[in-house]
C-alpha cells in the first residue's frame, strides 16, 4: 500500500514538453487502471446466483416457516391487540385462521361470520368479552362470529386492508360495519388539502386516487406499495411491531443499549388481555357537549366511496355481505346536523337497497348507552346484537346462509 502524502506526490506542473498526442493516447489505458475497491467483496455471476437462491428461499419460505415457529391460537372473542393494530401480516394470518376449517368441530370454517369494521366493531371502550361479536355469539349459542375489527381503521384504510391483506376472506359471511363518523367533517373524510396525520396511511391508495391530505414522500409511498405485495416485508414489520415495540432494530437498541435483540424475540405473541377499558360512563356523564357536525355530501365523500369499494370487493370474492350502519349517537347532534345526518342515512339506505346489499340501519340506541359519538357501552352492544338477531334481513342473509 502506498503511503505517500497526496500533496507530495507528483507535485510539479505537467510536463509541457510531452506531446499532447501521447498524453491523450494514454487516456484509453488509464480506464483499465481504476482499482476495483478496498475490500474483497467481489462476487462472480455464479456466486450471485447462490445469493439469489438463498434470498429467494428466504423471501418465499421465511414467513410461512415462521408461522410454524410462532404460535398463534386465538381463543374465543379474540381481537387483534390494540398495539398490533398496524400489524397487517398478523391481521392476514388471523383472517386465514378464522376462515380455515376447524380441525375439531368439523365445520366448514372456524367462524362462519366475520365482523369487520373499525373501533366500534373492535370494541374500543369495552373488554373483549363485551364486544358486538361476543354478544352475537352469545345469541347464537356458539362461536359463530369472529371479531376482525381494527382499532382506528377508517373506510379508506379498510378497503386497502381487505384488498391486500384480506385476500383469504372468500365465501364467508361478512358483517361490514359502516361508522358515519368518518363523514362527519371534511377532515374525517380526508378531503382537506392541508396535510395531517391520519391512521393507517400505508393502507390508503398511495398515488391514485389522490387523497388531498396525504402528502408523504414518494419514497415512503413506494415503500408502502412494495410492502403490500412482498409478504416478506410485512412479515419483518410484524417482527418489529410485535417484538421490538414497533421500532426497527437500530431504534430499539438505542432504548435497550445493552439488550440482546435475539432475546426480545420471545416467539410469544402479546395477548394484551386488558385491552379495552370497559367504560361505564356515558358521554353525558363525561361532559361531552352536543355537536354540530359538518357532514360531507354522500356523492362527494371519499370515505363512502371506499366503503362502497369494500362491499364490491368482498362480494366479488364470493362473500355474503351484510352492512350494519351505525348506530350513530344521534342524541349528540344539534342544529341542522341532525337533519343532514338523517338525509345522508336515507341516501345510504337507498344505495344499499338499489345494489341489493342486505343491511340493518338501527335507530339510535338510548342516549345513556353511548360513550361518545359512535361507541356504545357494553349494554349498547348487547342491545344491538339482540336487535340484529330480530332483524329479518340479518336472519335471512347471515343466519340462514349457514
Amino acid at each position, binding site marked *: 500500500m502506498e503511503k505517500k502524502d497526496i500533496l507530495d506526490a507528483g507535485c510539479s506542473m505537467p510536463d509541457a514538453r510531452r506531446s499532447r498526442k501521447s498524453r491523450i493516447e494514454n487516456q484509453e489505458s488509464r*480506464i483499465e487502471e481504476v482499482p476495483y475497491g478496498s475490500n474483497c467483496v467481489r462476487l462472480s455471476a455464479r456466486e450471485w446466483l447462490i445469493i439469489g437462491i438463498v434470498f429467494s428461499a428466504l423471501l418465499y419460505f421465511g414467513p410461512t416457516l415462521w408461522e410454524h415457529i410462532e404460535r398463534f391460537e386465538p381463543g374465543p372473542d379474540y381481537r387483534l391487540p390494540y398495539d398490533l393494530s398496524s400489524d397487517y401480516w398478523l391481521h392476514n394470518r388471523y383472517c386465514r385462521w378464522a376462515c380455515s376449517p376447524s380441525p375439531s368441530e368439523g365445520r366448514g370454517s372456524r367462524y362462519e361470520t366475520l365482523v369487520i369494521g373499525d373501533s366500534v366493531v373492535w370494541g374500543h371502550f369495552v373488554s373483549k368479552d363485551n364486544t358486538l361479536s361476543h354478544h352475537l355469539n352469545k345469541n347464537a349459542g356458539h362461536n359463530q362470529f369472529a371479531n376482525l375489527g381494527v382499532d382506528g381503521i377508517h373506510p379508506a384504510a379498510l378497503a386497502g386492508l381487505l384488498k391486500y391483506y384480506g385476500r383469504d376472506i372468500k365465501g364467508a359471511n361478512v358483517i361490514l360495519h359502516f361508522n358515519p363518523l368518518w363523514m362527519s367533517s371534511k377532515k374525517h373524510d380526508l378531503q382537506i388539502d392541508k396535510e395531517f396525520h391520519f391512521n393507517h396511511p400505508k393502507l390508503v391508495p398511495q398515488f391514485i386516487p389522490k387523497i388531498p391530505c396525504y402528502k408523504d414522500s414518494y419514497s415512503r409511498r413506494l415503500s408502502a406499495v412494495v410492502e403490500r405485495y412482498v409478504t416478506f416485508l410485512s412479515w419483518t414489520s410484524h417482527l418489529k411491531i410485535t417484538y421490538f415495540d414497533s421500532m426497527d432494530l437500530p431504534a430499539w437498541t438505542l432504548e435497550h443499549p445493552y439488550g440482546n435483540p435475539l432475546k426480545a424475540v420471545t416467539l410469544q405473541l402479546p395477548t394484551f388481555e386488558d385491552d379495552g377499558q370497559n367504560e361505564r360512563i356515558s358521554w353525558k356523564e363525561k361532559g361531552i357537549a352536543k355537536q354540530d357536525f359538518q357532514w360531507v355530501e354522500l356523492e362527494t365523500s371519499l370515505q363512502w366511496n371506499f366503503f362502497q369499494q369494500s362491499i364490491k370487493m368482498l362480494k366479488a370474492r364470493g362473500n355474503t355481505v351484510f352492512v350494519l350502519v351505525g348506530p350513530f349517537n344521534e342524541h349528540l347532534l344539534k342544529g341542522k346536523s341532525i337533519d343532514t345526518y338523517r338525509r345522508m342515512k336515507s341516501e345510504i339506505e337507498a344505495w344499499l337497497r338499489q345494489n341489493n346489499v342486505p343491511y340493518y340501519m338501527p335507530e339510535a340506541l338510548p342516549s345513556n348507552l353511548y360513550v361518545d359519538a359512535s361507541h356504545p357501552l357494553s349494554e349498547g352492544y348487547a342491545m344491538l346484537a339482540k336487535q340484529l338477531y330480530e332483524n329479518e334481513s340479518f336472519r335471512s342473509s347471515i343466519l340462514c346462509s349457514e
Partner: protein
Amino acid sequence: MLFHTWPFVLFFLIVYPTYLAVKGTRLRLPWLLAASYFFYACFNPLYLILIAYSTLLDYTVVAIMEKGRRRKMWLSISIVNNLALLSFFKYGGFVTENLNVLLSSLGIPYAIPAPGIFLPVGLSFYIFQSMSYTIDYYRGNIERERSLIRYATFVSLFPRLLMGPIERARNLLPQLHKRPGISKQDITDGLSLFIVGFFKKVALADYLALYVDKVYNAPGQYQSPALMLATFLFCWQIYFDFSGYTDMARGVARMMGFRLMLNFNNPYLATGLGDFWSRWHISLSSWFKDYVYIPLGGNRKGTFNTYKNMFLTMVISGLWHGAAWTFVIWGAMHALGRFVTRELERTSFYKERVPKLVKQLLVFIFVTFTWIFFRAESISDAWIIITRIFSSGLANPYCPLLALTLIFSVWLYQFAYESRVKWLLELRPVRIGIVVLMVLYLAFFAPSSEQPFIYLQF
C-alpha cells in the same frame, strides 16, 4: 431520489434496460443525458438551469480557447464564473453573517439581509469537475470535447452527479467516447459494489446517526463517555455515509460500463495525515493537489512555502466542505497534523521504531478529534464538547453495544484486508458469507427512516 430509496430503484429499472438496448446506437448519450437531467430535476427542476449554465459556459470557453486567442483570459472567465456561482449559493449566507458581525462590532447599526438561498445539491461536485476540464484543456492535458451532448453527459452523469467522485475529463470522457462493452463481470462487480455501499449507508451510517444526533444535538446534557463515543461513532458514520454513497455510485456506473475512480481506501488505517488524505475523498484531495496546491507552488520553494501551501490548501478544502468557521478550523487542524506527521516521518525513529499499529491509532485518534469541529453545529458547541470530554463526569453513555460490535467488525475486516491474512477474505465461502450476512441484516433490521447523505449539504 437517492440510491437507497425506492424511487431510485424504479428510476433505474426504467433507465438501465433502455440503456442496455440503446448502448450501441447514437441514442446512448442522449438517453444518458436525459436520464441524468431527469434524476437531477427530481430534486428541483430549477437546478437544471444551473447545471446547464455551467456546462454551456465551460463548453463555450474551451471552444473559444481552441481558436488560440486570449486563452488565459477565457480560462479566468470560466474560473471566476464557476467560483462566483459556488460562492453565491454556498457562501452567500456565511459572508453576510460575518459582515454583519463586523458591522455590529464597528458600531454600525445596519444588518445586511440574509440571502436565504438553499445550496443546490451536487453543485460543489459538478462545478469542480467542469473546472477541471477547462483547466486541463488550458494546460494541454486533454483534447477539446466537440460534442456538447457528450460534454453535458460528462458533467451530469447521474451516478456521480450528487456527491462525486469528482472525475477528471481524461478518465471519464474517453469512456463516453467508446461504446461500452458491458460484460457479465461488470454487472456482478457493480452489484457487489452497490450492496457494500448500501449496507454501509443503510445498516451502518443511518444507525450510528441515531446516537450521534442525539448527543450532538444537546452536547451540554451529556458527559465524557457519551461525548467520546458519539465522536467515535460520528467518525465512522461519516465514513460509512460517504464511502457508502461512493460505492453505490461506482456500482451503478460499473453496471453501465463506466469505471469511476476509487474515492475511499480504508482511510482509518492510515499511518500519517498525508496517508489519510490519499485514502479519504481521493477525488477531492487530488483535485486540490492538481488545481490549488501545485499552482500555489507545491513543494518546490522550500520548507516554509511548502507548509504555507499545504496550510492554504487544507483551509480551502475545509471551506469547500461547508460555509462555517468550524470547517475552517477543521481544515487548519488537518494542515497542522500533516506538518507534524510529515516531519515525524522524516525521522528514522518514527519511521523504523514506532509500530505501524501505534501510528495508525495516533492518526485515528487525531482524525476523530478533528471530526468534532466538522460535526458540531458551531464553534461554541465544539468547545462545549471538548471541555466536557475532559472535565465532566463518567455517567453511563448508554451507547448500543450492537453499533460498537458492527464498527469493530468492519475495522477488523479492514485490518485483515491490509495484512498478510488478506487471502482469508478472498476465499469464496468468506465472500459469499459476508454478502449473505449483509443481505440478511438489511432485510430484517434496516432502519425504516431514510436519511439523506451527510455530504449532500456540501
